């Protein structure tokens, strides 16, 4: 019996545990990942069971963490790095963009960079500044990186396994406000591809595309819409780079309408790329322009305003209405 109900955070913990067991080259590193088990407890108990050599509390320096992870990867290790919060990945941005992403290309394939960078991201938990950002677009634009985000515990478990096994660097965005959401995880089911989108609800009128924390919002919106007789299809994109455009295209060719939802600011966000490409692929199918629901062009606001800022069910349904209005 391999199926078990667990939170998304625990699924990640179990996935790390499995990776550490399966492959002695896997390392876990980051600030407070050791005895504390990370501020979200995702690495809880790992140092105790796998030693300080394999689960390392790093100095408080993100560029140093990623930079030394690159060196460890050059030496045959497979580091899984934790960045404590979304807003603290930027000191490491140079190492990620100019180094990590390019090692494979520069070495003409002679060197691989099996490094996973786990980043709890997004808002909705009432946090202080720099603790609620959604910077995925800033990584998706960079060739050489893979960018993914699970929306539920089962995907969290498996996608992290796949990310660790990938020989490419993977930026692994964890929807922090879903850490405590529970789902069934089947640890025996062979995984689907890391970069495949998943049609999580069938529908006929409008397609909703989301990933990470917004999948749940879209499912709720679809549920609410159903009560009003509208049939929304919901796609969990799962991967932001590359994007599984085939799955989205197939859906839009049926529904003829698309709304993309993410927490990150709309301007230059993932929705732009999806809108541009799907419009090209489905030009003669679309009955309405691809609409986008996301963050505003403003810094993430203080916690008491985040409910206004974050896309919620109502804003998604408003966009659906607008789409159907064409």
């Amino acid at each position: 019996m391999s199926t078990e109900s667990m939170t998304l955070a625990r699924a990640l913990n179990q996935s790390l545990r499995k990776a550490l067991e399966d492959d002695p080259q896997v390392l876990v590193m980051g600030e407070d990942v050791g005895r504390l088990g990370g501020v979200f407890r995702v690495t809880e108990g790992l140092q105790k069971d796998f030693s300080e050599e394999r689960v390392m509390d790093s100095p408080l320096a993100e560029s140093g963490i990623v930079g030394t992870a690159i060196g460890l990867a050059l030496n045959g290790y497979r580091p899984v790095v934790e960045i404590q919060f979304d807003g603290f990945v930027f000191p490491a941005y140079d190492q990620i963009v100019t180094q990590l992403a390019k090692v494979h290309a520069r070495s003409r394939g002679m060197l691989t960079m099996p490094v996973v960078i786990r980043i709890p991201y997004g808002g909705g938990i009432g946090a202080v500044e720099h603790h609620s950002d959604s910077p995925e677009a800033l990584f998706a634009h960079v060739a050489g990186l893979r960018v993914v985000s699970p929306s539920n515990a089962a995907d969290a478990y498996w996608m992290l396994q796949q990310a660790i096994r990938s020989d490419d660097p993977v930026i692994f965005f964890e929807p922090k406000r879903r850490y405590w959401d529970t789902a069934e995880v089947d640890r025996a089911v062979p995984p689907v591809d890391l970069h495949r989108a998943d049609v999580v609800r069938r529908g006929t009128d409008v397609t909703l595309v989301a990933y990470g924390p917004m999948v749940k919002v879209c499912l709720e919106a679809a549920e609410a819409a159903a009560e009003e007789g509208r049939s929304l299809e919901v796609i969990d994109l799962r991967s932001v780079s590359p994007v599984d455009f085939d799955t989205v295209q197939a859906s839009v060719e049926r529904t003829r309408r698309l709304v993309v939802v993410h927490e990150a600011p709309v301007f230059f966000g993932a929705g732009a790329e999806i809108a541009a490409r799907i419009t090209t692929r489905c030009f003669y199918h679309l009955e309405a322009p691809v609409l986008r629901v996301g963050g505003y062009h403003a810094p993430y606001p203080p916690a008491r305003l985040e409910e206004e800022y974050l896309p919620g069910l109502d804003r998604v349904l408003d966009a659906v209405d607008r789409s159907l209005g064409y």
Partner: protein
Amino acid sequence: MTVPGTERSHAPDLSRVLSAFSSRAEEPPGPIQLLTPEGTLVHHPDDTPGYDPLRLRAFYRDMVMARSIDTEATALQRQGELGLWPPLAGQEAAQIGSAHALRADDYAFPSYREHGVAWCRGVDPVDVVRLYRGVTNGGWDPREKNFHLYTLVVGSHALHATGYAMGLAKRGSGAAAIAYFGDGATSEGDVAEAFTFAAVHDAPVVFFCQNNQWAISEPVERQLRGPLYRRAAGFGFPGVQVDGNDVLAVHAVTEAALEHARTGNGPFFIEASTYRMGAHTTSDDPTRYRRAAELDEWRAKDPIDRVRTHLAEAGHATQEFFDDVATEGAELALRIRRQVRTMPDPDRTEVFGHVYADGHPLVDEERAQFAAYQASFADQEVK
């Protein structure tokens, strides 16, 4: 509210304190200390009468106020009034002693735990608490207080302080900047770069590191090797270690460091050895990573107790004084509580309020859409 820092202390002679630093051998006997945990004066025996009792009482009062703010805010967080609170308990001497050394025209760059410094700079604690309630990312007018906004990205404000100090020197202002950060922050590249820029530009900036032994769950040994104060020498400027729980020593050292900076001698580094008695923040559970014995050890070195003992034993303060301060602290706590509980949420459109100083079509467009969208609900409600 006490807003000191504009008059000079009657502390041990600055030059004597400075020479105490410079004559220190490679391996000093320990951090600079003027007041022992037991409340007795050390060093500078010829410095009698030591600190002016007035100043001593001001230190004591502000330390008690800082702890009062901290205790109240922690309680408010537990009651759900705040999203988060990073307690300063244990670091009162480091903060109050150093802040008292600042002049009004000096500019301070705090990190996120400098509630005691904020208090000394005249920032209303309610404004500090406002930030952690999630009402704003700012909270006060930095220019009015010469006290910058809190900076949460660890270490990054060390560079702002350095740049600010470069500006002070450029205009020959005779003032200095001070940057507060923790032991963990010293691992960040930005802090090292700040050292380099400050040294090369002879910038009048004091780097004030509260080594509270922990960066969340990581003890200082995970951040560095060897005595931290020596870091500065590697960048070509002086650094000293001071007993961070000794408000007198902190004050004297900071005053000397600021004077060093203001008089064109470039940057100065202070490592104040202290201890974070509480959790990292209210979200943290320190029992997961540190021993109770360690806490007990440091409790015995409480920064407030030793001043109180000294004040009492030297006859510098009466019971009435202590009672008054206690009352003042309780009243302050009450005011904070009252004001926080009735604090209104920010206006929704605040999201768009200050993204840019000059006009911006995208922000205008989104603000308008947002307003129209909100209005559509109003319509529905009316229906």
